[in-house]
């Protein structure tokens, strides 16, 4: 039987050794090409010292020649799984893409350097992983060589990371695996380190096999955001999109919100093949009878009439401010990007400012919030928009906030007032 596939997102500060960790694992598991290793071995003793760095450079060179780029070095197998790595970019503007479109991550690896500790990017990426709904995580406390492989340094930082994960919303993060490692030297990456005998948990590579395949949300109400709508000769109106939750079958009646129109699904196709039903993750086109192409558009969401998509009048959100040149106050109206929708929304009230280190309320009704702050806000869309509560349908609760060509915040809808 084929191994199950998991998308693994690697997060953390760019200099804390995410690439080194993955590169080291590739190298030790023999995933680096033989010819590259031979070239290195021809370098003799000097080569040995730089063995690992050299391998990394070779990969970089190869990529620069445009041969393989992402694919070859972003996929690997463990005993249990077939992994694809998504390495979270450092720049905050990419957060919008991670939230609205990039493939769903099933598990996260958070890398924190032992000598540097938690940095603002560590916090942002942890919050991003939670916002993306990545429920399982392994934390690697890297560069243990720089702190003398000391257990107390590891335990202290582990405690800080647990607090951070709690603050961004994770429950019981003490259950996650925490691995002390020195990726550059290979300690606890694939082989257990003899310098950290005090650590009895799994090495990084084995920690990956402790992840599980998250169940597809097929038992949830159907939510199918429309990416685009076509009128195809001989077929009719064909909306195209990805099923986020639930199941859609041929013969179902669907309602599109906020357009408020409904029609019957006559046929569904995926990769040009006719299918009787579609599940979460499926990119489909489907023919609906009774709806004109002009009646629905990108940003509408299809669902079943008995549990239709929720059009919000107002919603409460928890946000993290990633960047803003000045400050955000009530009355501010940036564009909210959620699934395929883009709607200008007014922040009507900043309800609470939260401590990014603990998640606790530090100020009620602050006049403004700025970069680095976490807050609870009330939001009013300037036109009808579908959004769902994180506790019910997290897939349609997350959003990125953009203004001035920047991603200024990311968040989730925690409560809402329906429009009808």
């Amino acid at each position, binding site marked *: 039987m084929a191994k199950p596939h998991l998308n693994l997102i690697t997060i953390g500060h*760019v200099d804390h050794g995410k690439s080194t960790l993955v590169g080291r694992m590739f190298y030790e598991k023999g995933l680096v090409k033989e010819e590259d290793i031979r070239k290195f071995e021809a370098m003799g003793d000097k080569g040995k010292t730089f063995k690992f760095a050299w391998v990394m450079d070779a*990969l970089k060179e190869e990529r620069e020649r445009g041969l393989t780029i992402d694919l070859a070095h972003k996929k690997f197998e463990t005993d249990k799984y077939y992994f694809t790595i998504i390495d979270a*970019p450092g*720049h905050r503007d990419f957060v919008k893409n991670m939230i609205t479109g990039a493939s769903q991550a099933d598990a996260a690896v958070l890398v924190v350097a032992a000598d540097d500790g938690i940095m603002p990017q560590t916090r942002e990426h942890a919050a991003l992983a939670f916002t993306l709904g990545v429920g399982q995580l392994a934390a690697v406390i890297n560069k243990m060589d720089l702190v003398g492989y000391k257990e107390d340094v590891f335990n202290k930082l582990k405690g800080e990371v647990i607090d951070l994960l709690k603050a961004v919303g994770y429950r019981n993060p003490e259950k996650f695996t925490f691995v002390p490692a020195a990726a550059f030297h290979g300690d606890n990456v694939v082989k257990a380190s003899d310098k950290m005998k005090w650590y009895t948990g799994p090495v990084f590579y084995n920690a990956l096999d402790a992840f599980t395949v998250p169940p597809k949300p097929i038992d949830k109400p159907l939510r199918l955001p429309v990416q685009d709508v076509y009128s195809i000769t001989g077929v009719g109106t064909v909306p195209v999109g990805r099923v986020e939750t639930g199941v859609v079958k041929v013969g179902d009646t669907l309602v599109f919100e906020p357009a408020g129109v409904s029609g019957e699904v006559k046929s569904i196709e995926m990769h*040009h093949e006719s299918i009787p039903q579609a599940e979460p993750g499926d990119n489909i*086109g489907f023919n609906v009878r009774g709806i004109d192409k002009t009646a629905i558009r990108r940003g509408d969401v299809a669902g079943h009439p008995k549990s239709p998509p929720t059009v919000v009048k107002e919603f409460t959100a928890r946000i993290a401010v990633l960047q803003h040149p000045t400050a955000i106050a009530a009355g501010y109206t940036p564009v909210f990007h959620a699934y395929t929708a883009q709607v200008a929304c007014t922040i009507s009230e900043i309800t609470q400012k939260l401590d990014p280190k603990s998640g606790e309320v530090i100020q009620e009704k602050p006049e403004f919030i700025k970069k680095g702050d976490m807050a609870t806000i009330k939001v009013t869309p300037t036109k009808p928009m579908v959004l769902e509560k994180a506790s019910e349908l997290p897939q349609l609760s997350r959003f990125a906030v953009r203004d001035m060509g920047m991603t200024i915040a990311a968040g989730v809808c925690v409560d809402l007032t329906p429009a009808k």
Partner: protein
Amino acid sequence: MAEVAVTLRLMPESAEVDLSMLETAIKERIKVHSISREPIAFGLEALRVIAVVEDAAGGTEPLERELAGLPGVGNVQVIGLTRLL
């Protein structure tokens, strides 16, 4: 800082758009790593474009705008994103 590989799905305006011409137009306008066809449904095909941007440059908006502005493009969606080494 590193580079980021961005995978974009370009949906044509209609099923009648000549995707070969669109591919040529894309290659003239932006530096791409690869372009492939992705069958969607009912004869409709999307173009899957992999482009590389600087992480430090921040975001995919200029790239998305450039592609969305090409004649025949219905919409552009970033479907994959990963930092390279």
